[in-house]
């Protein structure tokens, strides 16, 4: 019986799960229109599509950044970047749950600050996970944070022009 349930473990590339991160992006995509005073069904669809695109970009750009910045580590452990991003992005979950609580329970019209904090925290955590797997230098935290900030700004701008 596994007595270390819930502990971070080394997973093979096949064992890395990215779907929780995509699910978080999709939930944010659905929630964002509901925080506006007026919206249509098409607004929700557009917002969902934008969230999926931002999610795809965030995850793949982070994997690219870790792989290109740690060539030596990539030679020995080809799946380290995917593992780091998969684990780091799990930390979007608390922000997603809190955004749902804020909107549904507390009635606050502010989802975007949750999304912005989620993507930036998850990216920085992915950087820390990469360093734990052997990636060298604080660039592994600084660059993902910068990427996340740019992406969340773009996301914010795109959602502000939703019909």
């Amino acid at each position, binding site marked *: 019986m596994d007595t270390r*349930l*819930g*502990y*971070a473990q080394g997973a093979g590339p096949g064992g890395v799960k990215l779907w929780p991160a995509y699910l978080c992006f999709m939930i944010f995509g659905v929630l964002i229109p509901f925080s506006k005073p007026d919206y249509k069904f098409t607004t929700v669809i557009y917002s969902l599509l934008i969230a999926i695109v931002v999610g795809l970009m965030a995850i793949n750009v982070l994997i690219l950044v870790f792989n290109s910045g740690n060539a030596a580590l990539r030679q020995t452990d080809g799946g380290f970047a995917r593992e780091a991003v998969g*684990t780091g992005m*799990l*930390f979007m*979950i*608390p*922000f997603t*749950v*809190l955004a749902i*609580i*804020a909107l549904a*329970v*507390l009635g*606050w019209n*502010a989802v975007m*600050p*949750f999304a912005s*904090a989620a993507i930036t*925290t998850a990216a*920085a*955590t992915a950087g*820390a996970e990469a360093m734990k797997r052997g990636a060298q230098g*604080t660039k592994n*935290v600084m660059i993902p944070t910068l990427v996340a900030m740019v992406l969340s700004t773009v996301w914010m701008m795109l959602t502000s022009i939703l019909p």
Partner: protein
Amino acid sequence: MNTAAPMDIPRWKTALNMMINPGEVIKTQMTKIPWPYSVMVSGLSFTLFFLQTGLDMLKAGQIGASTVILITVLGLLYGTVGIVLLAVMVWALSQAGERGYTLEWAISTFALGYSATFVYALSGLIFSLAFGWKTAVAFGVTGVLWALRPTLYTIKQMSGERVAFSIAMTTLCGAILLIGWAVLGKFAG
């Protein structure tokens, strides 16, 4: 627990580093920070956050000046007693004592994580007083959200890197803080 001798870094720098690189601070610098200092940081953060809440309600004509003072005092209690209780709960649930983390260390690390909330709350108060903006949600709640990152790292460290547990506990802590703030605001108003 990390037993390496920490460098002599000023406490205010450690508080600022907690926002930028919480993982490193938690592992190497927290043994130098006494828990009353950290509780002072979280206490001040929530005092300013609740003061903005009171000022927002005052601007909307919902409450008077005396209630603003009451809400501010509630903020002080929330940031000191509330955060200490939250830290004790997380310390107990994560069985951090078995890994060599003392209760004082847990309180100190947990409370210092709210240095991000302090920066946001202070900025919000400046905008509230100078421009008359309503800043409690925009600055205050955002500040609490940015404090979740140090909270997450603290729980990860205390729980022995248990990812699922850290995510669940961070969510619980965030929910308690946000719902508690909303309830106290309504109660005072």
